[in-house]
């Protein structure tokens, strides 16, 4: 893996030599995120979001494990145990706000990471496997976040669980038995809460495993870059450490500033007030909505309101799941040989003036009440969403004339390739 000019790990310290012989863990780290991993020298700040997503995952696991020490997964006392954490556990309020807002920021980071991938076609060969694993991570994260939102056992927890598991009841014939089987009852209750807690604790470690595969697959071809031109020579790259550790360090600082501003000053802004009311199966909230990060998919679900051959609800469920499943096929739908949107004039227009406004509209409509004009607006946006990925992308990839690409990354950065000079990392770090 990696490039021939990648630096080799040479332990000096006898302890590290011993370690390298018996268990070359330091070598693994050195080659993965150290000086042994050559990375394109032209990465923009959009390439920070992978590391940030990894950071969020670890943050969620650490805060979550501590919260689980104080939380009680029982429908009779779950709500009160969360309030116990907020009031009586030392720094419990901070842990819980970090965990709740951590989920929101995790999704924010993942969305930027995914849309970076869309714009720069990071899914194209030779990186299809990284992309496929990434979509798997996204689906697992959605499942984990949904089940986590059920745990406080507030009104939105309860009714959200009811609506989302109710989606399965749209499946013909076996739908209702599946829903009852998933919930362990006819409605969300203790059985559902317990299994959601169990899965919410377990899935993050599955995600961690797939993240390791995601990073492993990344290190086979190496990172993509904003030009989309593959690395050709040593001057196209810099060692990950210190160049990108330094850049990621700054990015992490900015991220933490925004994140902690929310944790300490707007901790409930991204949540819903109804979830501070204890779950009550006899009282339906006027306006059931998921967490903000599910709004676009919720808008697609609700866009289908007319029984055409099959039930409208089933259309909505099919469309909602398909809206993410299409991402799996992107490497084969978009056949343009050029990766970066910077050199694809038609693709770029459809990205900035099609996909991005479409997603913004879906976000807005997903959180709005299910009434006109929001339903009609989300129907138009849903139509565009599917057209974009399934019709527009395949067609423009065959009719578009891309702009000329730079010869190499070095040329893109320095203007010409023969003046390529890269200082040794050690010297530069001085």
């Amino acid at each position, binding site marked *: 893996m990696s490039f021939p000019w990648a630096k080799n790990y040479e332990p000096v310290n006898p302890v590290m030599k011993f370690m390298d012989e018996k268990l070359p863990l330091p070598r693994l780290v050195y080659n993965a995120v150290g000086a042994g991993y050559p990375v394109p020298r032209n990465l923009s700040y959009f390439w920070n979001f992978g590391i940030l997503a990894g950071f969020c995952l670890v943050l969620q696991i650490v805060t979550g494990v501590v919260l689980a020490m104080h939380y009680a997964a029982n429908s009779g006392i779950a709500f009160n145990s969360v309030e116990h954490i907020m*009031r009586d556990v030392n720094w419990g309020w901070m842990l819980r706000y970090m965990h709740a807002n951590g989920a929101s920021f995790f999704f924010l980071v993942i969305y930027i990471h995914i849309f970076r991938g869309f714009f720069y076609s990071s899914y194209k060969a030779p990186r299809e496997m990284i992309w496929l694993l990434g979509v798997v991570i996204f689906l697992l994260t959605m499942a984990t976040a949904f089940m986590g939102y059920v745990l406080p056992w507030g009104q939105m927890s309860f009714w959200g669980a009811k609506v989302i598991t109710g989606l399965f009841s749209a499946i013909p014939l076996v739908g209702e038995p599946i829903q009852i089987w998933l919930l362990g009852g006819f409605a969300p209750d203790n059985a559902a809460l317990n299994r959601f807690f169990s899965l919410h604790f377990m899935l993050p470690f599955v995600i961690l495993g797939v993240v390791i595969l995601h990073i492993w697959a990344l290190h086979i071809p190496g990172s993509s870059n904003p030009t989309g031109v593959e690395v050709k020579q040593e001057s196209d790259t810099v060692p990950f450490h210190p160049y990108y550790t330094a850049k990621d360090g*700054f990015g992490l600082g900015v991220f933490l500033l925004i994140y902690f501003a929310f944790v*300490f*000053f707007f901790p409930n802004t991204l949540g819903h007030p109804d979830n501070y009311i204890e779950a009550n199966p006899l009282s339906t909230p006027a306006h059931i909505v998921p967490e903000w990060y599910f709004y676009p998919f919720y808008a697609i679900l609700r866009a289908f309101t007319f029984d055409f051959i099959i039930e409208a609800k089933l259309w909505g469920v099919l469309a909602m799941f398909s809206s993410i499943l299409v991402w799996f096929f992107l490497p084969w739908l978009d056949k343009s040989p050029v990766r970066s949107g910077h050199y694809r004039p038609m693709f770029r227009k459809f990205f900035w003036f099609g996909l991005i406004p479409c997603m913004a509209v879906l976000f807005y409509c997903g959180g709005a009440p299910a009434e006109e004009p929001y339903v009609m607006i989300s*129907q138009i946006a849903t139509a565009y969403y599917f057209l974009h990925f399934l019709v527009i992308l395949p067609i423009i990839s065959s009719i578009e004339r891309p702009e000329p690409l730079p010869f190499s990354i070095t040329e893109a950065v320095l203007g010409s390739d023969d003046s390529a000079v890269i200082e040794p990392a050690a010297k530069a770090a001085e």
Partner: protein
Amino acid sequence: MIRLVGILVGLGFTFVVLLTFLVGAYTAATEPAAETAEHAFHLTPKEDVHFSFEGPVGHWDIAQLQRGYKVYKEVCSACHSLKQVAFRNLADLGYSEAQVKAEAAAWRVPGIDPNTGEATTRPGLPTDAFPSPYPNSVAAAAANNNAIPPDLSLMTKARHEGSHYVYSLLTGYQEPSAELAERFPESLPGPGLHHNPYFANLNLAMAPPLTTEGQVTYDDGTVATVDQMSQDVAAFLTWTAEPKLVKRKQTGWPVLGFLLFATILAWFAKKSVWANAKRRED
């Protein structure tokens, strides 16, 4: 092949969703949705009151919290519990340990008679939570025209703009307007209900709880107008909903300060590491 299938699937979904759009548009054009009374007459909470705990450097007004507690104790607690709040938490409001004990002992909480084992009540201890005046929800519903008075512990977090919501609700009782009576006669308050535009469905089972000046006698000499009592109890309920609110904001500043410093350092570290890498050879 995969692209052909993709295009067909994409066109299929587009066709169905546009069809459903046309049906919806036709319905909307032919039978426009009737406006509801809630939509026309519901008001968002008043914004003209400022509470001391608001803003990035907000702090508790201890005197106000004590006044609010008195309003809760003498008015609200007749129907509403605070089951998440214990008497010991009153120490946050500036009461001494002895005062907390005395305060707790003045309340009756459910207990068990040590001799007979029968359910009874006993004086509260600092570790007890503020009790509900009703033995159970059936009794609460029976005593209140079938509307169960909600627990107030988290009320200001369970509503948008919660502190302002509580204040607006308490000061927002009014006669329904003539316009409402004309356009939505079915939304006029029925028997046992009271019109309040700040309440979600405009009709509230709770009778106006704060009606006359001096209903509560403040110990600190503040004039107990309805407006003042409403503000004070809204502040008190903000504290019960989030006793750590001020500590949270106070913790936030050093954390952000440290992070800002670390981020500036990281910026210079990044700059110096990259200083040689991007320079063009002129």
